[in-house]
């Protein structure tokens, strides 16, 4: 009792860092459905420690996002927390200004609309979302939104809040923050918006940051910058980070701990090196296997090329141009226009896979659509050499003359959900090209569709069902069946695997290689994902702002890139090996023309 004056010894910082700030125990979140409750999160437990990053990994539908949303109780109805506890230890936050008595809140017990939980959201726990455009209000300036976030929790004046907002924007490395604060979200690029979101999340120096796929919608070079930024801020402030992602490369890059989820359950949990090098659960092994399989050229393709080298050119593109918004404006003034495709020349040989890689806005998808004449080209020629050796210039053909060419050139779309008509059965969708080209009818059509479905590994019974009955990977197979229905020579695959989970990606790529062997196909494969291109393509063309900046054999370009942009792109790709973390020097290519 006499020792009251003596202050207790301050806890060593390492000890404080180990004590968890957030504990999730046996969390169950269920959605009431027509067929009874569906447990999206089923008995999940984990802890977050200050200054540490936990990566929650899983494929789509594994319940990782619902877990994150359950913590803040922002699950969309009819979802609700059923049982379990979410303990927030406020006294253990890294802020250090609250050395008061132990203060632990069970957030699962709070009402989702209560004042208590609103005080936690944003102040103790902040969240950033995948789509930065839809999570920022389009009608308020960035500055106003950050100021509002600050003033919601801290009672400060408008002027002070604004000063802090500028400070925050400076922290997230937005250039000229005094000017940027007056701008609206649409004036920001995708990466800038995500930075602004992070600035908003950090407005009240939260002790926990939940990042739900924050870089999925961004290009790899931007992703690398955002990841580095989160890491830096984390070490500055000592936040605990819960990072949700499906990308093992990102996990290897940033995680201290990894938790793997599947069907709402936590299947494996451990530190990063252990998970990557000695995975225990079959699902983790499969996930890592799929990632590692994509980290090299397909052995099957290499083998095939030794016996069947690519033949004569089937498609020659010369100086192709596509300009958007070129119409002359009011009073004949020339408006802004975009050179989406700016003088591209390419050659595709028979039996060859040509990859076109580039970031969003590089014009790679426009190029693919110009080749199919979905968009008319503004200049140049697309020479297609058919089976008989006749040359067609797709760019100059009249609309009526396109039918035979479109029978030989087919397309696979990126989004397996919007590319299949939801109002038609799978049999009707796959049979449509055969029917309208007058190739088969009635029982013959049915047999042919069944044959096509079995070629892509789908059961015959799929014919009677509607697309909504199938998962993304299965839908993409249906799209492939439709593409090969007319026995084409060339298939243009526009981001055909981007919407798929990593384990399905390899399956679809294997399927395409298999079909190439059976049907003598050539592919133009458009993607932003270098790993996929490296696995699948013989040659690669790198696009930047409508131009091809580098072209060559895939391995040569991937191992020894010549152009500065290719170097920047390759350096930004996260590598799925935690031991390689921080071994590469990143640089950004700004492009001088």
């Amino acid at each position, binding site marked *: 009792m006499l020792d009251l004056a003596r202050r207790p010894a301050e806890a060593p910082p390492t000890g404080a860092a180990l004590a968890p700030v957030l504990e999730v125990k046996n969390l169950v979140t269920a959605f009431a*459905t*027509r*067929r009874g409750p*569906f447990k999206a999160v089923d008995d999940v437990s984990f802890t977050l420690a200050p200054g540490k990053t936990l990566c929650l990994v899983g*494929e789509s*539908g594994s319940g990782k996002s619902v877990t994150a949303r359950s913590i803040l109780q922002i699950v969309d109805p009819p979802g609700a927390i059923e049982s379990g506890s979410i303990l927030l230890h406020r006294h253990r936050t890294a802020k250090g200004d609250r050395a008061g008595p132990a203060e632990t809140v069970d957030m699962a017990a709070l009402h989702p609309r209560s004042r208590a939980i609103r005080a936690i959201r944003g102040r103790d726990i902040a969240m950033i979302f995948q789509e930065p455009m839809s999570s920022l209000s389009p009608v308020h300036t960035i500055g106003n939104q950050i100021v509002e976030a600050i003033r919601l929790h801290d009672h400060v004046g408008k002027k002070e809040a604004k000063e802090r907002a500028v400070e925050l924007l400076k922290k997230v490395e937005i250039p000229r923050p005094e000017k940027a604060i007056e701008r609206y979200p649409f004036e920001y690029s995708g990466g800038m918006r995500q930075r602004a979101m992070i600035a908003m999340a950090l407005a009240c120096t939260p002790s926990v940051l939940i990042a739900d796929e924050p870089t999925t919608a961004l290009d790899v070079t931007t992703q690398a910058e955002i990841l580095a930024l989160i890491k830096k801020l984390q070490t500055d402030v000592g936040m605990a980070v819960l990072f949700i992602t499906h990308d093992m490369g990102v996990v290897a890059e940033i995680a201290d701990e990894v938790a793997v989820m599947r*069907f709402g359950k936590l299947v494996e949990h451990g530190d990063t090196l252990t998970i990557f090098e000695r995975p225990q659960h*079959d699902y983790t092994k*499969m996930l890592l*296997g*799929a990632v590692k399989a994509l980290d090299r050229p397909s052995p099957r393709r290499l083998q095939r090329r030794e016996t069947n080298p690519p033949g004569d050119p089937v498609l020659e593109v010369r100086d192709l141009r596509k300009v958007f918004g070129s119409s002359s404006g009011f009073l004949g003034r020339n408006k802004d226009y975009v050179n989406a495709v700016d003088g591209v020349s390419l050659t595709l040989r028979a039996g060859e896979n040509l990859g076109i890689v580039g970031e969003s806005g590089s014009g790679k998808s426009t190029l693919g659509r110009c080749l*199919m004449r*979905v968009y008319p080209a503004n200049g140049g020629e697309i020479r297609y050499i058919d089976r008989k050796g006749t040359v067609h210039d797709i760019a100059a053909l009249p609309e009526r003359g396109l*039918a035979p060419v*479109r*029978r030989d050139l*087919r*397309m696979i*779309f*990126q*989004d397996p959900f*919007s*590319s*299949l*008509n*939801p*109002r*038609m059965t799978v049999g009707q969708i796959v049979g*449509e*090209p055969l029917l*309208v*080209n007058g190739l088969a009818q009635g029982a013959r059509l049915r047999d042919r569709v069944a044959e096509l479905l079995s070629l892509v590994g789908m059961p015959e019974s799929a014919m*009677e*069902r*509607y697309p*909504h*009955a199938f*998962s993304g*990977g*299965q839908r993409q197979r249906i*799209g492939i069946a*439709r593409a090969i229905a007319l026995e084409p020579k060339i298939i243009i695959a526009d981001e055909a695997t981007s919407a798929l*989970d990593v*384990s*399905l990606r*390899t*399956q679809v790529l*294997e399927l395409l290689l298999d079909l190439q062997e059976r049907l003598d196909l050539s592919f133009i494969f458009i993607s932003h994902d270098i790993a996929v291109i490296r696995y699948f393509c013989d040659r690669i063309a790198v696009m930047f702002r409508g131009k091809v900046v580098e072209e060559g054999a895939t391995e040569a370009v991937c191992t020894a890139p010549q152009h500065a942009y290719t170097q920047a792109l390759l350096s930004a790709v996260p590598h799925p090996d935690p031991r390689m973390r921080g071994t590469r020097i990143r640089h950004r290519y700004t492009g001088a023309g």
Partner: protein
Amino acid sequence: MTAAVLDPRAHPSADQASQWRLMWWAFRRHKLAMTGLVIVALLYLVALLAEFFAPYDPDAAVARHVYHPPQAVHFFDTAADGSWAFRPHVQGMRLSRDRFTLQTTYAPDPGQKIDVGFFVKGTPYKLWGVIEMERRFFGTVDPTQRAYLIGADRLGRDMLSRVVAGTRISMSIGLVGVGMSLVLGIILGGLSGYYGGWIDATVQRIVEFKLAMPTIPIWLGLSAALPMDWPPMARYFAITVILSLIGWTELARVVRGRFLSLRTEDFVTAARLDGCSERRTIFRHMLPSMVSHIIASVSLAIPGMILAETSLSFLGLGLLPPTISWGVLLKEAQNVRSIAQAPWLFAPGAAVCLAVLALNFLGDGLRDASDPYAQEGR
């Protein structure tokens, strides 16, 4: 590699469900809309069999029953000895007139009990002007007696019969009017949305011009131009045409918007690349995705038509007596005297409210359910 990851939520019964089945599932969850659907179905049933549902001929006037007040139905009859029996009846009323003020009052006549029942034989009538029938859905057991459940008007005509008869005109004018504007709207909106360019610009300017014109004066002007001596049938069609000439603009915009958003969908591009002709792309691939949206906007447009007809007739410029519509009936309730003496003349107004609300709820439910794929989120 291991087998494909299957979605545990996928359920076999939903796999073969077409869009209509999914829409129905979504619609059924909307309680208010289901109520609306039932009421709308009942209203159209009444409209279809109006002669059968009306207790009396709506034009039969009884001078003794001028402004007869509503009578309540009693189910049990107690005799003088205290015994009782199930015998639905209404209390008869006797008219008396004040000697000095000449004010008429109705007082219950205890001696007179008028038996009522379902499916009774009433005055003969012709269903749809063709089939001779005697049975009526509801009425007095003795066809010479009369019961007024919601009162009588200034000529002693049964209001209930008149409201029922008005249902046919008022509900059908909405349907026919919307049908006509639908044809115009789909053709013009479709052309505008699919082709774009100068066609789109022209159609949109026409639509904007139409929308900029004040509706009520236009209606008034057009219907005032109709010759007063036209037969009721010709007038009815003229009024529907006038209403739909204005109404198509909204539908044209809905259709155009759907075409614009669908035109860029991947599955429409895929249909073009499959070699589908323009016609097939529109009718086989685009229109089926739109039908549900169109139905929803149609069911939201019908109440507007009903209200427009009611207002025109109320102002004396729409349909004219002897045609019976809710608007025509409400015209009778225009003066202060009727409010003071016979508030039951407003009954057609209640019918208008019921129909408009039910159709709006139905339309809301249909609109919410019309995109089952957006709701299912998969």
